[in-house]
């Protein structure tokens, strides 16, 4: 390459104030391989770009260096300009003489000299640049959504409505997630199930959605646009096609003592059951650990009762394979485990609150079930111990959240609103009751959120105490809550009938496993990492994998839904063309030199390197070498630095280019 054009920008006064642009251009013209050197007041402007295009054509340039601002600012601009002049865009390089020169060096002679050096480096590099074409990857237009809570439902419906097939995988027997168990939602107090269940039914009936419940992602192979996903469907012991969901079986089931997961242990369920009346699919499942037939070989009443002949005690787990183009992870959250026994007779995490020991100390999600019309008490607020209506209820904020001693430094974000909602729901049902809230701060940012908290305090008369609770004990059937009111500056003891702990939000169990399968990072708390907190909030560093909802961080329903729709939009954007176009600046292996040590493979953060077999004409294995998957490689170059035989190289930052850059500074 020997016909390079250097274009130095004045950037008005920005570069020209501290750099002698004319002198730089003259010196650049003398650099080896430089054909012409020009300047312009504003190189990024239309006339500036025209100068570049015209010069490329007139001088038949085969390489271009723009000395102006940061490549993060305008490299794309100038590469496009080159493309318009029929020069391969990857033959354009930039020298950053503004951010890293004229703006930080006021001594004109030295800034000018450095500018020349920066151009020298860029020219040295561009002499070794190669024309590159974007990598094209075929796309399977089908999406996997993992998790059927409100976020997963929203994402699945958005995508399915646009005509793209969706496979929705849910671990539980029904979709609906945590939201299905809520009573009313803030800040409007509209009934949670009234909003959600029609959406759940829509999922079940949508021609573009394949729903797998009682299912988990077993294995993920492949890469963006071309995943192959294996889903494990747990044995349901029900033929869902024959079953009509009539309910004869679960009404007759004699095994009635299993704590209901959906009611968080406040109610009981049978061994053959649907988690809640509006479950989707509206088909029961048999709990293999509770069913008398499956555990002891006795019973079988459900078989007799079933008129559809739908009970299948010989049902087996089934593995389903799907070809998938993009994956959305929406696995949601669980509550922080309060008062968890550590196996040595002690309790970790707020043992002093007596959760698990005192039946009337419950979590916020359990309180939701107590208030819910479909809950174990039919919507009447009755405490678990004796079924009495509690006259004094204490709500405690930040149980786990913002507590470094418990290892969770973050704010769970929804609890302040949840507490305000709970005091209101309580006061609306128990008019003469007293609601007390212990809080650290009230964080109610959001549309109509602060107004909602004010309403709880001012209209519904909730008592808010700023301070923590140190201990809860039980005396004469009442819970003695000892805390402090830091605004009043005095200790505070309240005799309560019921205590509700707003436990922190944590990512759902098993999310780390899933994250490793789809190659997405997670933080110290297990929340999945987005690609960029502001500009790429639903993408991840694994191409083709997106996140939404509370698996990514604490979120309320509106935020989860917003993020789910955003993820859906990103997937649809990806599917808007038949092929994916990726940056060609990726690694490649010179297979003839590769010794097959696979150090590169172990170091690759994207699992983009696979072993390939080289065989002779007779089909005999000659040797195994590393091969880069262009659909996965992101171009970090870690493999290049590790390769002992120097048989891996990185387009755009090749050994030749980088060494030439350093050499130019000699």
């Amino acid at each position: 390459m020997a016909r390079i054009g250097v274009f130095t920008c004045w950037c008005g006064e920005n570069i020209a104030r501290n750099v002698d642009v004319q002198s730089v251009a003259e010196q650049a013209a003398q650099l080896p391989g430089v054909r012409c050197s020009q300047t312009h007041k504003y190189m990024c402007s239309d006339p500036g770009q025209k100068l570049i295009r015209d010069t490329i054509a007139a001088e038949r340039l085969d390489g271009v260096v723009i000395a102006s601002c940061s490549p993060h600012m305008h490299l794309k601009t100038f590469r496009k300009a080159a493309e318009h002049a029929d020069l391969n865009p990857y033959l354009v390089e930039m020298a950053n003489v503004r951010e890293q020169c004229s703006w930080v060096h006021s001594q004109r002679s030295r800034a000018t000299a450095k500018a020349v050096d920066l151009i020298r480096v860029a020219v040295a590099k561009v002499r070794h640049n190669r024309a590159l074409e974007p990598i094209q990857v075929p796309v399977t237009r089908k999406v996997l959504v993992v998790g059927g809570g409100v976020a997963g439902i929203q994402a699945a419906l958005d995508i399915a409505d646009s005509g793209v097939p969706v496979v929705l995988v849910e671990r539980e027997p029904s979709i609906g997630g945590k939201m299905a168990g809520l009573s009313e939602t803030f800040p409007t107090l509209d009934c949670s199930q009234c909003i959600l269940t029609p959406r759940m039914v829509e999922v079940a009936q949508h021609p573009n959605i394949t729903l797998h419940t009682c299912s988990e992602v077993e294995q993920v192979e492949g890469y963006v646009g071309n995943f192959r996903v294996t889903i494990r469907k747990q044995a349901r012991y029900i033929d869902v096609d024959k079953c009509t969901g009539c309910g004869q079986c679960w009404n007759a089931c004699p095994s009635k003592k299993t704590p209901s997961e959906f009611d968080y242990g406040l109610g009981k369920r049978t061994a053959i059951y649907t988690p809640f009346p509006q479950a989707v699919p509206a088909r029961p499942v048999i709990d293999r650990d509770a069913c008398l037939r499956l555990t002891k070989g006795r019973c079988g009443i459900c078989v007799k009762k079933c008129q559809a002949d739908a009970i299948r005690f010989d049902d087996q787990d089934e593995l389903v394979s799907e070809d998938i183009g993009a994956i959305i992870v929406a696995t949601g959250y669980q509550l922080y485990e309060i008062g968890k026994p550590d196996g040595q007779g002690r309790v970790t995490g707020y043992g002093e609150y007596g959760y698990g020991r005192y039946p009337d100390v419950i979590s916020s999600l359990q309180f939701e079930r107590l208030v819910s019309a479909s809950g174990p008490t039919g919507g009447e607020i009755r405490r678990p111990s004796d079924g009495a209506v509690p006259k004094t209820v204490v709500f405690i904020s930040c149980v786990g959240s913002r507590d470094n001693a418990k290892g969770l430094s973050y704010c769970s974000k929804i609890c302040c609103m949840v507490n305000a909602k709970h005091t209101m729901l309580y006061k609306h049902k128990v008019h003469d009751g007293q609601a007390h809230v212990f809080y650290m701060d009230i964080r109610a940012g959001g549309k109509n959120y602060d107004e909602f908290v004010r309403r709880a305090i001012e209209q519904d008369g909730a008592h808010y105490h700023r301070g923590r609770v140190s201990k809860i004990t039980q005396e004469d059937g009442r819970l003695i809550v000892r805390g402090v009111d830091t605004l009043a500056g005095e200790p505070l003891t309240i005799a309560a009938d019921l205590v509700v702990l707003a436990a922190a939000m944590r990512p759902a169990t098993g999310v780390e496993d899933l994250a490793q399968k789809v190659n997405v990072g997670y933080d110290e708390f297990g929340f999945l990492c987005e690609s960029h907190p502001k500009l790429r909030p639903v993408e991840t560093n694994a191409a083709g994998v997106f996140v939404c909802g509370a698996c990514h961080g604490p979120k309320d329903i509106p935020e989860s839904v917003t993020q789910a729709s955003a993820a859906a939009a990103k997937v649809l954007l990806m599917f808007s063309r038949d092929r994916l176009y990726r940056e060609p600046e990726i690694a490649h292996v010179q297979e003839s030199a590769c010794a097959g040590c696979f150090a590169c493979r172990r170091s690759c953060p994207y699992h983009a390197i696979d072993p390939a077999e080289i065989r002779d004409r007779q089909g005999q294995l000659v040797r195994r070498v590393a091969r880069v998957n262009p659909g996965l490689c992101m171009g970090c170059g870690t493999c290049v630095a590790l390769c002992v035989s120097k048989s891996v190289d990185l387009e755009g930052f090749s050994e030749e280019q980088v060494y030439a850059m350093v050499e130019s500074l000699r």
Partner: protein
Amino acid sequence: MNTAASDPANGEFEPKIVAYVCNWCTYLGADLAGTNRLEYPANVRIIRLPCTGRIDFNLIVKAFEIGADAVLVSGCHPGDCHYTSGNYHARRRWMLFRELLATLGIETERVHFTWISAAEGKKFQQLISEITSTTRDLGPYHAYREICETCEV
């Protein structure tokens, strides 16, 4: 040595510093120093690479060979790597390589390894000022060049 950093007008020793930085954190940190007009000595020549994981440590030796008086390697903070883990590889390599350099007799105080994020323009300014000043105190890296010349003979 015909490049400008070591060719001062005032006759004083001007160290030549080669900086290998990653594209996503330190390069943007340097850009931010510019945007905030944070002045620092003009002795550093940045070579932009996608990731510190890309830096083969032969490049450090190469920098000394072409006459650098100090070398800087800087990338994203641990946990912040754009490519998830390239900086961890760089860090591991650096831990091993530093000892090797010391064994070979290379003055390891001339090799600097740091993390600078895209938000740390101020830190970039301070770091470059500091490295320039310490390298100025150390003086030109004659010892290495003499070895190079001997080898060439």
